[in-house]
């Protein structure tokens, strides 16, 4: 796409699904996700002059939506937002490993994904755990794992400086998500 004026209709056709999916995973509401797609495309159209072509259009649009989602949570969430999203990750690390870095917790056998993948209740828990992650972590996990953005694109959108930091953040995110799923789902039987 090299046109000088932005084309929201074309963006909607090409990236509507990706934007909607991302919004749905974060806000869990169809009407809200729809609004966000619309607002994102409108904002993109208005600020198209600032798009420098250094990232793909998809990455640029996702970056705009990321801010819309943050704004939404600022307005409507009563949870106080921690400045350091990775703050209580230290607690989880201390809970999980001893001083030598060996596991001090037992992990439950989860079985195979095939069973859970069709279980509506499991998905509800999965979404809840995803929603509980600090915003940066949720964004990172969704954009990298679901949308398949490259490491470089993720760094750009999330303002992470190096791919090494990205890898550490992803590892911590997985540790957290795993812990939540284990407690909320697998340890319930």
């Amino acid at each position, binding site marked *: 796409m090299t046109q000088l*004026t932005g084309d*929201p*209709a074309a963006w*909607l056709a090409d990236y*509507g*699904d990706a*934007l*909607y*999916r991302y919004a*749905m*995973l974060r806000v869990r509401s*169809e009407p809200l996700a*729809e609004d966000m*797609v*619309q607002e994102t*495309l*409108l904002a993109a*159209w208005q600020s198209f002059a600032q798009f420098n072509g250094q990232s793909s259009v998809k990455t640029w649009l996702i970056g705009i939506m990321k801010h819309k989602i943050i704004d939404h949570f600022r307005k409507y969430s009563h949870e106080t937002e921690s400045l350091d999203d990775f703050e209580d990750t230290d607690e989880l*690390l201390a809970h*999980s*490993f001893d001083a*030598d*870095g*060996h*596991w001090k917790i*037992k*992990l439950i*056998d*989860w079985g*195979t*994904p095939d069973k*859970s*993948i069709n279980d509506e209740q499991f*998905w509800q828990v*999965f979404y809840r755990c995803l929603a509980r992650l600090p915003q940066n972590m949720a964004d990172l*996990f*969704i954009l*990298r*794992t*679901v949308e*398949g953005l490259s*490491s470089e694109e993720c760094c750009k959108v999330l303002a992470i400086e190096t791919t090494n930091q990205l*890898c*550490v953040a*992803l*590892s911590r995110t*997985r*540790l957290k*998500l*795993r812990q939540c*799923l*284990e407690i909320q789902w697998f340890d319930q039987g």
Partner: protein
Amino acid sequence: MLSCKKMTDLLSDSLETRLPWPKRWAMKLHLMVCVTCRRYRRHLLFMQKMLAGGRGKAMPLPEAARLRIKEKLAGKTKGWD
């Protein structure tokens, strides 16, 4: 030998990129003797499969919503370009 904590990072990294062989070798050795890390690895693959292949992808923008957005955008961006 690698610590389990370090293993969780390497296991996560190995989902992102192909690690150099010394790291892969060290992981292999650790996994041979550590049942908890073997389980952790299975949990990571589980989560990856759920999101990358499962429901994550199956959430397209509904056609009705797409049309509504299209109309609103057309209304708001009309005459500007």
